[in-house]
């Protein structure tokens, strides 16, 4: 196995345990644990079978650590993301979940899903969650972030300021790169993992060179199938 696959996951796991921008290390690990717990939630299972999620009410089977509005966000993103809507998100924000916290939460869940899915795919047990690291969140919001194309504010490449980290280094700044940009550290962290598991941006259209044991076409077909299976419109 390519060493970068292992090293990128090690970096992601260390990042998961460290204080984030809006959540502490302990809260980030709790979100990760709740994302795993969502797979055992009876309410989520019932909703998955319903025509719409709103048709089934009840309480999530949670670990009891996080606020219920956070639990709802984690469980729905983990188990039913293809049917999320702006109205659903606005309802969560109306219940007091800060949009910056929400975006970081999405990044944490995506990281855990990627690493857990990798282990599952290879028939390995999931990694033990890391020990939370002490420290306080930086709470730095990019000055140039604004509402434009997503449900959440994003930071356009042209709006990155001198005080912002280089979140688009090595990236084309496509919409998917912008999705988490309200929390630049999540863009940097998630796409570090993406480059190892998929391909770095600069190699995506270099069809004349194969960088993996799979061809570009094999990679893209598998990727497209995964998106379809997850009912992803993007």
């Amino acid at each position, binding site marked *: *196995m*390519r060493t970068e*696959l292992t090293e990128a996951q090690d970096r992601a796991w260390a990042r998961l345990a460290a204080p984030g921008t809006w959540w502490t290390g302990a809260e980030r690990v709790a979100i990760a644990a709740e994302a795993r717990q969502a797979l055992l939630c009876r309410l989520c299972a019932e909703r998955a079978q319903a025509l719409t*999620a709103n048709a089934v009410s009840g309480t999530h089977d949670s670990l009891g650590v996080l606020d219920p509005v956070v639990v709802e966000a984690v469980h729905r993103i*983990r188990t039913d*993301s*293809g*049917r*999320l*809507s702006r109205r659903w*998100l606005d309802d969560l924000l109306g219940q007091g979940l800060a949009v910056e916290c929400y975006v970081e939460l*999405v*990044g944490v*869940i*995506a*990281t855990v*899903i*990627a*690493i857990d*899915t*990798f282990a599952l*795919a*290879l*028939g390995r047990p999931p990694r033990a969650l890391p020990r939370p690291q002490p420290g306080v969140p930086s709470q730095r919001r990019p000055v140039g972030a604004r509402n434009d*194309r*997503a*449900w959440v504010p994003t930071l356009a490449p042209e709006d990155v300021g001198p005080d912002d980290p280089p979140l688009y280094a090595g990236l084309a700044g*496509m*919409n998917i790169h912008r*999705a*988490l940009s309200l929390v630049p550290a999540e863009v940097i962290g*998630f796409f570090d993992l*993406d480059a*190892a*598991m*998929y391909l770095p941006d600069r190699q995506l*259209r270099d*069809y004349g060179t194969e960088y*993996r*044991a*799979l*061809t*570009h*076409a*094999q*990679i*893209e*077909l*598998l990727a*497209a*199938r*995964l*998106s*379809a*299976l*997850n*009912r*992803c*419109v*993007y």
Partner: protein
Amino acid sequence: MVLLRGSGEFTGHGYDFSVVMDGSGDGGVPRGKLLMDFGAAVVGGDADSLAACRDGVRRALGEEALADAAGVAAIFNAVVRVADATGIPLEDAKAAASEKVRAEIGIDAFADGKA
């Protein structure tokens, strides 16, 4: 989809995008069905099916390819959550370039059922 088409244009292969929706064939990509079956098993939740698909990929393509396929399946199982949870749209240019094929194979129907 855009990158799959780009790959096909570069190599001169015309891939069948419709297989992405039902996994019914290889779409013209060598070992494509094997890989799509593996992807479906990864998200399908059936351990026996996944073990069989994993062995199939390993035998046909090798250990390195299996790890790479696991990586692609893993990151795309995650990145769809990023897109879905933030409501980030497809770029206008990509949407226009893929409009016909998206309509033909039914991807646009995924927008239904959101609540």
